[in-house]
């Protein structure tokens, strides 16, 4: 065990034998994994899971299934211990293009999300304004999404989803096309959102190994496994899981500059290449 004392609580997200086929072609094959509440004494600690895998391995398909937007061919995803499949809306989704309703202002977009959970308009408004302040967007509330920069749009899309979801946020390729500075800011943002509540769980789907290792407490490596003779199996699954807490590689500022982090990233990349 690493340097931080922690324990695991209830299961927050459970993926059970999920299979997906398109026109008889297997895309996902028996994907199983779970996210459990990480309890660190004396501080609020959310969960961040990085899902890594090569292009075309079915990451986005799994993303849509976890979000409740696509039904799997078989198997099930459930959240918060519910004995039923996840429903759209329970898991927030921030896709690569940070979608927002272009016909609504920032405030309009956020109020739309806030009022799905908070029926009292004033309370919803207060919550929205509080989050806008928290994410340094309070002076942008009257702008339309087209008037926001990429970073502002990303933050706005994240606020919209956390206002509405049950502590879950899925992010599809949040590091794609970012420069070094923006990449660091995005990692800080993910950690900030995760640590806003003990139950907050962020699943980051990406192919950026270094960024995923720097932000996650657990990593799931997706790809097609091999049979005994080395032939690739049809459909992707989670072929390897890494616990970065056990390796003492998370929640530490400046960890990415250490030798053991670099060694770990190399290990993951080597595994990645074999997929």
């Amino acid at each position, binding site marked *: 065990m690493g340097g931080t004392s922690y324990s695991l609580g209830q299961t927050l997200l459970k993926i059970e034998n999920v299979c997906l086929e398109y026109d008889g072609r297997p895309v996902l094959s028996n994907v199983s994994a779970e996210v459990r509440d990480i309890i660190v004494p004396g501080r609020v600690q959310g969960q961040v899971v990085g899902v890594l895998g090569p292009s075309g391995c079915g990451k986005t398909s799994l993303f849509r299934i976890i979000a409740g*937007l696509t039904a799997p061919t078989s198997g099930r995803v459930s959240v918060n211990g519910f004995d039923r499949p996840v429903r759209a809306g329970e898991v927030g989704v921030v*896709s690569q293009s940070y*979608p927002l309703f272009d016909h609504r202002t920032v405030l309009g977009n956020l109020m739309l999300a806030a009022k*799905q959970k908070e029926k009292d308009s004033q309370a919803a408004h207060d919550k929205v304004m509080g989050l806008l302040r928290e994410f340094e967007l309070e002076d942008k509330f009257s702008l339309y999404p087209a008037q926001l920069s990429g970073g502002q749009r990303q933050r706005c899309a994240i606020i919209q989803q956390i206002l*509405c979801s049950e502590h879950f946020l899925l992010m599809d390729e949040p590091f794609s096309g970012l420069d070094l500075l923006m990449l660091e800011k995005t990692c800080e943002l993910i950690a900030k959102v995760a640590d806003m509540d003990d139950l907050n769980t962020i699943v980051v789907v990406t192919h950026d190994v270094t960024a995923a290792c720097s932000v996650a407490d657990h990593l799931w490596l997706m790809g097609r496994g091999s049979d005994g003779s080395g032939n690739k199996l049809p459909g992707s699954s989670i072929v390897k899981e890494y616990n970065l807490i056990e390796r003492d590689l998370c929640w530490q500022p400046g960890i990415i500059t250490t030798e053991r982090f670099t060694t770990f990233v190399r290990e993951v990349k080597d595994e990645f290449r074999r997929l």
Partner: protein
Amino acid sequence: MTHAAAVFAPNAVLSRNTVRILVATQVTVVFLLWAFSPFVLLPKPGEVLNALGELWREGLGTELITSFYLNLEAIALATIVSLLLAYATVMPFFRPVVALLSKLRFLSLVGLTFFFTLMAKSGHQLKLSLLAFSVSVFFVTGMADVIEGVPKEEFDLARTLRMGEWRVVWEVIVLGQVDKAFDVLRQNAAIGWMMLTMVEGIVRSEGGVGTILLDQNHHFRLAAVFAIQLTILILGLAQDYGIGVAKNLFCPYAALTLERK
């Protein structure tokens, strides 16, 4: 780059002033070509102006009001019917019906007159239904295409915000496409004026600018024909401008991502 070179550069974005100069120059050139055209059958601007004065004294103003009112009524009716039909395509049951209606735009109005005459109770109703029908078949085609083209991502966004499917329709299809509905309306309101003369020619009760146009055309009074066409053009441009102003007022976000605002 100089202004002169900029107007021929691909995708060049011009200042408002340059655009004004460009438009004024082109209008002047067209006017001069018209005024000094060697084509003897083409009535000169002065003749058209005289014909317009004469037509006005003979009651062109009243006929214009009749036609304008008829066109407005038809566009309003066509807009309501077409939007309802296009929105109904969110339900699979209505998709074949709307697809069939859309195909009817290839039919000539003349061939449908008898059918509409049987249903209409007055000349005005006949004209109104013919005009509304002819605009609707184009309107519904344009609007159904707009709805068909809504990206999956927008539906996903609405669903992740816990909206039920009818709320998704309201947010994504109705509110989300208002700006495009204005564009479709703009195109089809122009088609209304184009069809108006044909409709007023088929049903001559109540008169209207189309009836006068056909009469003048029949007697080969080209100056009067030009005068009426010019009047329709000015009215059409005003209508187009009005719809554009309404779009900018209700959908200020629509132009934010355009290169040429």
